[in-house]
């Protein structure tokens, strides 16, 4: 019995060794008749050798060589890292950056510096980083490499011409989402909580609460918001973007107060709230943030997403690379807002049939009024510090 197992394992290992052995030096040793002088150079040429050696001296090099560095959440965070990388690959697909952009995931704080160095060593001319924690490393390296362009996904305290900071007036779309939520709620209570009291998180909660207040003002209703107070500019935070149990407890606490539309802000901390809603079997909805949650989040939650407040990180990253490619790139703070299409509302998706058509038309009208500047929903200060 065990002997058999070991034999199988041995065979597996030997097979594996065979594979690696091929990898090590003689690529052709497996099946195909080896081309006569098959050593290292000849057969490789077709695919692998070309992109690696390209430098900015080549004639094609009008286009930026992009390098993307994530923060600790990694590129599969279903949030701003994922969107930032999408922005880079979109730019490549649209011909604004050279093929094979480099992706470097940071696993620890001490990875930022060597990851930036790795980008520079690979000849990157435009480095995109995500998250505030990389700020200091970017500051140091951007100052030392004035020829390289940097796109920084968040606000920072840079005073450098070669760094573009992407900031978002997300409260504009949150305002419209709040208006919608106030119209959808049956209990008259909307809940919200955030991962941490960062401005990039609070701005969603603040905008949503103002939207609810606007609805109350228009309709003479008294829809309540739990978890954010516009007056004190403070609200409920879990203190973690990763502690799912805590997120669930927080969500349950707000559901206990009869909330039936929830806006949890911060990575995947909205999913435990979805679990809570499903477990209770109540008729409640979630509002997503960043990327359209209906598509970005796991399938079992699809019926829950009322709408997503979209933060077009990908759009602004692509635009930054486009500007670089077209030679009109500028550093400094760049605000994405409703007017330039970098902030917006997703379609209703699964809630299409459940939302009153008139309410949806009103919501869109409110958003349009924000775009046109008739309603000033951009209350929260964004931009370089």
């Amino acid at each position, binding site marked *: 019995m065990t002997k058999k197992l070991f034999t199988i394992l041995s065979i597996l*290992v030997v097979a*594996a060794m065979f594979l690696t052995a091929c990898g090590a030096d003689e*690529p052709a040793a497996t099946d195909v008749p080896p081309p006569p002088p098959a050593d290292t150079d000849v057969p490789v040429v077709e695919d692998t050798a070309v992109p690696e050696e390209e430098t900015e001296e080549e004639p094609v090099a009008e286009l930026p060589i992009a390098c993307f560095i994530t923060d600790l959440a990694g590129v599969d965070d279903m949030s701003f890292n994922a969107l930032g990388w999408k922005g880079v690959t979109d730019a490549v697909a649209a011909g604004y950056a050279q093929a094979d952009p*480099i992706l470097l995931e940071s*696993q*620890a*704080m001490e990875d930022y510096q060597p990851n930036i160095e790795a980008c520079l060593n690979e000849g990157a001319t435009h480095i995109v980083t995500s998250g505030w*924690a990389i700020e200091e490393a970017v500051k140091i390296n951007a100052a030392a490499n004035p020829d390289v362009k940097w796109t920084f996904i968040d606000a920072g305290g840079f005073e450098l011409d070669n760094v573009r900071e992407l900031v978002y007036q997300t409260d504009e779309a949150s305002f419209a989402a709040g208006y919608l939520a106030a119209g959808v709620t049956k209990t008259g209570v909307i809940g919200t909580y955030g991962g941490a009291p*960062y401005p990039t998180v609070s701005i969603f909660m603040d905008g949503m609460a103002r939207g609810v207040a606007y609805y109350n003002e228009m309709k003479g209703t008294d829809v309540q918001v739990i978890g954010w107070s516009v007056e004190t500019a403070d609200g409920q935070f879990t203190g973690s973007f990763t502690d799912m149990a805590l997120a669930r407890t927080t969500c349950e606490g707000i559901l206990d107060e009869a909330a039936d539309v929830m806006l949890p802000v911060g990575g995947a901390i909205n999913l435990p709230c979805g679990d809570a809603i499903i477990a209770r079997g109540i008729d409640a909805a979630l509002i997503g943030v960043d990327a359209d949650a209906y598509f970005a989040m796991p399938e079992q939650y699809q019926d829950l997403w009322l709408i997503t407040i979209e933060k077009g990180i990908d759009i602004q990253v692509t635009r930054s690379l486009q500007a670089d490619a077209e030679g009109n790139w500028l550093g400094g703070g760049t605000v994405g807002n409703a007017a330039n299409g970098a902030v917006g509302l997703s379609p209703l998706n699964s809630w299409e049939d459940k939302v009153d058509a008139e309410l949806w038309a009103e919501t869109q009208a409110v958003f349009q009024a924000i775009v046109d500047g008739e309603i000033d929903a951009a209350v929260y200060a964004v931009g370089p510090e």
Partner: protein
Amino acid sequence: MTESTDTNLTNPEKSPPEKPPSNLFARITGINTGWIRSLLIPTLALLVALIFGAVFVALTDLEALALLKEDFGGGLRLMAEGVGLAYKALFTGAFGSVYGLSETLFAATPLLLTGLAVALGFRAGLFNIGANGQMLIGGMAALWVALHLNLPGFIHIPLAILAAIIGGALWGGISGLLKAITGAHEVITTIMLNFIAFFLVEYLLTVPVFQEAGKINPISEFVPLSARFPQVFGADYRVSIGLLIAVAAAIFVSWLLFRSSWGFEFRAVGFNPTASRFAGMKVQSLLVLVMGFSGALAGIAGANQVLGFSPYQVTSAFAGTIGFDAIALALLGQSHPVGVVWAALLFGALKAGGRAMQASAQIPLDLVVVIQALIIVFIAAPELVRAIFRVKPPEKEKTQITKGWGG
């Protein structure tokens, strides 16, 4: 206890007519010849892990998999090329240049310190899962000294490290104390203390005592020049005196475990706490002491993370996953300081090389983690490795890892 019982316990599996260690190194550290053979299984485990890793690289190469259907040989060749490219990048990234080597050593530094912390616990039968929390507390203690005492470097740095030692020792000592007094299992308490430490740090970084002025995000003020670890190989390489401290710590732990009477008692408790108690040892206080030492070592690693590298400013993530990697390290090093040194170098190399693998071979970093995990799997199952390579088991091999639950 006399000196003779001490040497007996050093090598409980050896037969009596044993040559005393001859050279000075062996006499100081208590390490003798057996260690070369003890490298065999870890080395083979590494080899098998690399082979399986290669299979992973090959099987995740979608381009090659697609080609496999049309042109089997060509697909295989493409896969093999991918594997070759990946491992070449891994190797050159870690050892191929002075920079690569320095990054390997840089990454190995905190791993070595925490690995020693965990290994020390293992020797006494304690499973210290709390190295991360001890790092965090030690690091914050060092950060406080760095930020709030205005001293010249030659006294500022030792003082900051001392603060880290005390902070880490206290944090580790709590678990030891809880175990000694109430019998609470250290696995539970250290894990819980990790959470407490993390959220404490997250909070502390938002108060003006630590937070950078004018910031809303939880990020610390910059460590002043006088408290920054000097770089050993010049400004281009990140290796700092932290490495020297870590090596000194390894020598100290060797001495502590194999040449001091405390170390003898630690190991005795690890082998059999009941017998140790009957032999007159104060097992309770030993448990606190071991956790204190263990926490102190992790605390120094925390100081290294705070004072050791640019931009000399930290977020609550400064301990990363080092405290957990350390468990793997201690297992790989078979809880022996020398083994831990090698294991730290290996993990450091995987870290430095993993980056090169991402950058030039475009292979996700996750794969490096897979290889690390595979190494642990094969280390944890030495019988499997022996069976694969037909290595005869030694007559009697005892590597006391830790006591089970309620031990």
